[in-house]
């Protein structure tokens, strides 16, 4: 808990200490991916259900947030609740279908991928609702007095204009981390972990595995949708590829697997690590070879494989083992 207060405080003060600009942008991206990762972690890390299509939740959240403003002029502060609750409902529906029919392991991964693809096609195919492939562009608010009301910080005065969305995603991340931390300490959390470890044994002990997984996928969807809300408010734009393409699904699973599955800190640790490495690689290798794209993702993929091979509990597990050794614990973690 003390560790988390330090992390929260450090992240809150970062824009003041680092000044705005590149480093804050880096942290903002790290936090955004950490939120996607936390969403994935609830279902994948704690529940053992590996989704390959979490973009479906990011995209649904983003589109609901964008379309309620775009089509009906609803305030972003109201639409965001619809975005989060609506996506949780979509998560429950997908979970209901998948888990009712007993899909586990690779089959669950495949069906989530298929749902993301189906939503991708739907978003492209009904321009009268979604504006199709062109995407939804929200109107820019230029009135500084309405910055807060429109949830747009571009003209809100220099500090807020530069750091408003950093604090938005920081708040979302801390909320998601706190929710996960709380979940670990409830009956629901204990039952979810039990289902991950051994579904048969869990059922024998009175756990309704179906309902527990349904709860987890809804929470996962809600957290991921919040990242979608942030994205839309920051960029005022969403289109089918960004919303439902595979890249968001992949980013969502990188961070927790590398950072440490089923730990509260894993997604943040993993996101920080890969983006740190990514930035370093772009600055060195990428620069040396003429700023070509792809370097960071080559490294991410390689790190993912190495972590899967050698660090099944991710960086958090490595850290715990090192800490135990340093403090003279028994060391066989």
């Amino acid at each position, binding site marked *: 808990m003390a560790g988390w207060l330090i992390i929260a405080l450090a992240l809150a003060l970062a824009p003041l200490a680092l000044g705005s600009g590149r480093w804050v942008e880096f942290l903002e991206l790290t936090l955004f991916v950490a939120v996607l990762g936390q969403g994935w972690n609830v279902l994948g890390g704690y529940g053992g259900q590996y989704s390959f299509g979490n973009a479906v939740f990011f995209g649904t959240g983003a589109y609901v947030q964008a379309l309620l403003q775009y089509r009906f002029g609803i305030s972003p502060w109201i639409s965001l609740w619809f975005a989060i609750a609506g996506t949780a409902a979509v998560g429950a529906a997908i979970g209901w279908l998948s888990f009712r029919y007993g899909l586990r392991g690779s089959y669950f991964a495949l069906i989530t991928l298929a749902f993301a693809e189906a939503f991708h096609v739907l978003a492209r195919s009904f321009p009268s609702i979604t504006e199709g492939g062109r995407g939804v562009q929200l109107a820019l608010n230029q009135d500084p007095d309405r910055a807060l009301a429109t949830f747009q910080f571009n003209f809100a005065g220099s500090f807020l204009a530069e750091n408003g969305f950093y604090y938005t995603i920081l708040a979302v991340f801390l909320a998601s981390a706190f929710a996960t931390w709380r979940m670990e300490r409830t009956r629901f959390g204990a039952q979810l972990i039990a289902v991950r470890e051994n579904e048969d*044994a*869990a059922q024998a002990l009175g756990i309704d*595995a179906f309902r527990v997984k349904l709860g987890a996928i809804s929470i996962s969807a809600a957290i991921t949708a919040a990242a979608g809300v942030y994205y839309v408010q920051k960029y005022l734009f969403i289109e089918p590829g960004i919303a439902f393409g595979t890249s968001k699904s992949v980013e969502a699973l990188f961070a927790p697997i590398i950072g440490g599955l089923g730990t509260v800190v894993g997604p943040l640790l993993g996101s920080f690590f890969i983006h740190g490495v990514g930035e370093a690689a772009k600055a060195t290798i990428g620069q040396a070879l003429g700023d070509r794209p792809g370097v960071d993702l080559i490294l991410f993929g390689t790190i993912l494989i190495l972590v899967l091979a050698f660090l099944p509990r991710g960086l958090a597990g490595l850290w715990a083992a090192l800490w135990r050794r340093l403090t003279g614990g028994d060391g066989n973690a």
Partner: protein
Amino acid sequence: MLEVRGLSRSFGGLKAVDDVTLSVPRGQIVSLIGPNGAGKTTLFALISGFLKPDSGRVSFEGRDITGHKPHAICRAGIVRTFQVVQPFAGLSVHENIAVGAHTRLRDRDEALERAREVAHRVGMGAMLDRPASALTIAGRKRLELARALATDPRLLLLDEVMAGLNATEIGELVEVIRAIRDEGVTIFLIEHVMQAVMRLSDYTHVLNHGAMIASGTPREVTSAPHVIEAYLGHGAAARLAELEAGHA
């Protein structure tokens, strides 16, 4: 307390459980014995909801529970252990038992406290913080029992909890099971270790090829000729009798 009426289940052409009728009275220790492949574990799976019967009924405390889901049956008060132990390997002993305790207790602290009590009851008090994956076979069997006990069952189905244990460990576990019964939990157990069956059970059912072939006190059934034949093969009872006659 538990009534099983005409329960059957087949896999392909094979009748794994064939028209089984039995009852387990409250407060007793009843055992289920039989040669390997007799259908004992299948019968447990049918009672606990992991398999659905083709025909027949199971009722518990007067309520029909046939074909109910495993978690619902557990909540009704019947809990099973697994022949092949199924610990939550990534969790500690304490956390494992707490999962069971959560069946009746929502609050995390209460569940952890209850898990601690149960651990002491089955002699695992000193191992609470051990990872489940680091336990010996005897430890895992005890953990399986502790986790089941933590759900506050009224009927405990134990599937070969003695298998793989040495004589001392069996002796200890027999005492633990007796103590559980004395606290009011009815026990129905599958067991191969005859020494334990003889010492523990008030009543014994014998299953062979999916069908009940004998019921009675442990002494009665183990001296019945057709039970001996089921275990040792055709003609064994006659040979045993001859042997004994020869000695006399």
